[in-house]
């Protein structure tokens, strides 16, 4: 399986990433793309920015491990993950997951599996910086852990 992980401050281009992945996807009949965006109104006070940090080296290795685990469950041709870090404004892209596989069911399931484990296993930490100048680190969500746990 082809696997490419990037953690970056800058934007990503969905069309360019899809075109690049297809070069490595062989005869795959399905390509699923998921993009996550920063929500402005998760709390009572509107968000000015979401700040994300990671552990360079360790985070990339952990995402690669998650992708390899996905490839044990489904026949995947290629996986691409881009996760942004730094200060992101509401509406900005935060994460991209692309999965290419022979058939759509495997591609859909693997994309969802990757997102569930990105949220619960990959070392990222989010801080909400609000328009009133206050800020707080985001707590881990039980609903995210439950979502990952269902894969067994």
């Amino acid at each position, binding site marked *: 399986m082809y696997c490419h992980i990037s953690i970056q401050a800058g934007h990503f281009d969905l069309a360019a990433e899809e075109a690049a992945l297809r070069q490595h996807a062989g005869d795959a009949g399905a390509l699923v793309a998921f993009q*996550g965006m920063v929500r402005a109104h998760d709390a009572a006070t509107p968000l000015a920015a979401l700040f994300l940090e990671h552990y360079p080296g360790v985070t990339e290795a952990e995402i690669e491990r998650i992708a390899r685990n996905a490839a044990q469950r489904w026949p995947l041709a290629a996986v691409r993950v881009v996760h942004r870090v730094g200060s992101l404004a509401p509406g900005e892209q935060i994460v991209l997951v692309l999965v290419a596989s022979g058939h759509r069911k495997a591609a859909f399931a693997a994309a969802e599996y990757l997102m569930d484990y990105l949220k619960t296993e*990959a*070392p*990222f930490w989010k801080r909400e910086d609000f328009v009133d100048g206050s800020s707080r680190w*985001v707590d881990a969500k039980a609903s995210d852990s439950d979502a990952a746990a269902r894969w067994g």
Partner: protein
Amino acid sequence: MSIRVLYFGRLKDTAGCSEEQLPWQGGTTGTLLAQLRARSDSWAAALAEGQVFRLVVNQQIVRGDAEIPPGAEVGILPPVTGG
């Protein structure tokens, strides 16, 4: 000898820094956590069971109580919130 300890997420606020050098006579991740918890109530609360997600020794995520060799880089990770 010493070790380099890295803090992430809300642990940076507790530590007041993102990393520090600590004198190290040898021991495990459990030894280190016990030392840090003994610093103050706020350290004890921040590093309480359930608040620490995982420890990383020399870029390897460790499970359970793992040896920390002198000169090591140790990352202390609070529960993660990515995606």
